[in-house]
């Protein structure tokens, strides 16, 4: 009824390798894309700028982490550090006079080089040991940032970002910033959607499931792990640079601290490992819900005329938000993406699935 299907049946390889195997999914994606395009005209600027924009950039970043953690199965606790590398190198490049188009690529490539250099050392170990090694990378980066004024930019280690410009056009409006973020997020999303259709994607999944089994099949697991780290670091670098250029306007070490690394990892896990749409949900939950719940609690308490101590008021949203994460992971350990998938699967052939059983 909703999907107008009797099920997903493939008659040939072409149909099996389509991005959207169900036409309704494709239509939904197009519809959401159009809403995204029209967003500056239909969403009030407050929500566009303080919610939509960071959401899109963080989604791009989370998709990058999802590549290495969800697809290649390598736990990464130093993702924010990689974002910092990209952000700082892009801004320094832009301050030096490099056009932003190239500055972003420089940021991405620097991240990529440093991320994969580190992976060379880190990938000699696996699992939890790898996680700890990546965490070490985070701490090394934190230390470098707080101890080298040349990189972090002097007083209280804050580095002003020059005005963003593309093709000679200065971008200063809220709408402009939004479209930059939207464009980048769409680009990363298309890349990730296509990933599972390629040899690279299949190799990554093979490595994730069992790296020595993959090796027996002729997949060089070390090579693919490095490739995953390099690609995801590139995405991280550009996302980090865009985050500063369109949202923070200056870079400070706190924006890329270890808590941020853990937050991105939480986004990916709550959203669903290896799920593209899950990353969107996960970022929304981790990034936006605390603020929204906070606003809601304040509004409700004021609406009811309750005199609640400001400190208590600040802690209630945290408790609600924590509970929300626990509840979601209890209901569906595979994350929000899977939760959406369950609903979709249920509705796929509804109501006719009732007859089948």
């Amino acid at each position, binding site marked *: 009824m909703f999907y107008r299907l009797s099920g997903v049946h493939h008659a040939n390889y072409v149909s099996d390798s389509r991005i959207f195997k169900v036409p309704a999914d494709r239509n939904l994606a197009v519809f959401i894309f159009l809403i995204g395009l029209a967003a500056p005209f239909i969403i009030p600027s407050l929500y566009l700028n303080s919610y939509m924009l960071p959401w899109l950039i963080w989604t791009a970043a989370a998709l990058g982490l999802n590549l290495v953690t969800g697809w290649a199965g390598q736990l990464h606790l130093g993702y924010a550090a990689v974002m910092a590398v990209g952000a700082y190198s892009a801004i320094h490049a832009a301050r030096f006079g490099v056009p932003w188009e190239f500055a972003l690529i420089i940021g991405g490539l620097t991240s990529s080089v440093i991320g994969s250099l580190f992976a060379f050392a880190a990938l000699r170990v696996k699992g939890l040991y790898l996680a700890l090694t990546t965490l070490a990378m985070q701490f090394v980066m934190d230390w470098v940032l707080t101890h080298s004024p040349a990189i972090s930019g002097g007083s209280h280690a804050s580095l002003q970002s020059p005005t963003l410009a593309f093709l000679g056009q200065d971008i200063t409006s809220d709408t402009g910033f939004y479209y930059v973020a939207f464009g980048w997020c769409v680009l990363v999303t298309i890349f990730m959607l296509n990933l599972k259709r390629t040899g690279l994607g299949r190799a990554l999944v093979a490595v994730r499931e069992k790296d020595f089994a993959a090796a027996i099949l002729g997949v060089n697991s070390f090579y693919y792990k490095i490739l995953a780290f390099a690609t995801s670091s590139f995405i991280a670098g550009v996302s980090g640079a865009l985050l500063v250029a369109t949202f923070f306007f200056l870079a400070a070490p706190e924006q890329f601290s270890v808590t941020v690394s853990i937050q991105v990892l939480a986004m990916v896990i709550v959203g669903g490992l290896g799920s593209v749409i899950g990353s969107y949900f996960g970022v929304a939950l981790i990034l936006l819900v605390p603020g*929204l719940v906070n606003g809601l609690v304040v509004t409700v308490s004021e609406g009811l005329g309750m005199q609640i101590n400001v400190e208590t008021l600040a802690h209630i949203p945290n408790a609600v938000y924590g509970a929300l994460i626990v509840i979601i992971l209890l209901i569906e350990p595979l994350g929000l993406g899977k939760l959406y998938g369950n609903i979709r699967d249920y509705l796929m052939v509804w109501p006719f699935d009732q007859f089948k059983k």
Partner: protein
Amino acid sequence: MKGLTKALAVFSMVGGAMFGTQALAEPFKIGVCYDLSKAYTFATPQVAQAAQDLAKLVNMKGGIGGEPVEVIVRDHGNEPQRGIECYSKLSREGVFVFDTLSTPVSLAILPRAMEDGRILMQSLVGRGDAVDGTVFDWVYPIGPTYWGQAANDVAYIKQLHDGDLSDVKVGFVYFDYPFGQEPIEILETLSEKEGFELELYPVPLPGSDQAGVWSKVRRDKPDHVIVWMLGGAHVVASKEMQRNRIPMEKYISVNWLNEVDVANIGTDAAKGIKRGTNVVGGQDVALFKEIMTELYDNGQGSGPIEKTQDVFYNTGLAMYSIMFEAARNAVELEGLPITPTSYKAGLESLKGYDANGLMAPITVTAEDHGGGGQTRIEMWDGEAWVPQTEWISEYGDVVWDVVKESSAKYEQ
């Protein structure tokens, strides 16, 4: 997926509208976007409570220019992203004076406030070079910068040694991240100028292990130790000092040392500990007594009374006295309603204002947004804080050199 966020957004918008209609007169609002749940909770609850109490008191006395005042307290959990959200949301509700009491959030809001022409108060946090009013038009870090505070500490040490620092050794114990590293440049310059020997002792975060640091201090035997740490780290330091038999009198803390820390060290054990401060601590302050009789004695306080017995409560009173006084000046100068420009003029006409003996007198000008940066040194005598100096602000030229050098980088 966007549907979900939109639904939530619409829901909170409707909620906001419901609340908006309740307020009748249009009050003068201050956006208090604080970290009430994460890193800054050692001070924010006291300061926020002081802000609310003071607003109540001002309203009881008829408000400012006949209009009520309102402080809107919101939590941002020390996350830049949520700080920006708080700023954007409140500025759309007509708020144009903001205070964050958090360095990361203050840094994140600063470019926007500069762009939008809204007042960013950032006493005791944020980038110190923002005292340079010629560069940072809309930012007011009223109170001492860490640079000025460190310079004043050196001036105090100079007083102790009768104006000759040539054979004096000063140690600097600091958190090894931007907050603690900031005074190093000033101290190095002053050490060259005054000829004292400077030893640096970085403490790794979170400061719970300082054994190595203080045994090094014992070996080097500095005459004074200037300390740039917060909260529990003071307690750890005092334990290590006792272990190494270093007298407490040598310890000169940054302003972030409060009654809770002294109680944790032990009121007797802490005897002799010193701190730099820009407010008068304790309860023997006119404004404090007024709040007690008008609010707390009638059960009208904004929080538990214990929180008021804390120097950070007085710090909050000082910060918000300045903000309300500036609003009064603004009304006097340009009348109602208060606008960002008239409020700016109000701030810049503060002259020798000390909130009736609550704090170091401040004079804000278009060039100096810091108000002069006076502090004094107090010593804990086992029961109370005893002032060791007058309000002083020394080495202005050295401090301003650093400020100018740093603020020039912002303009690039």
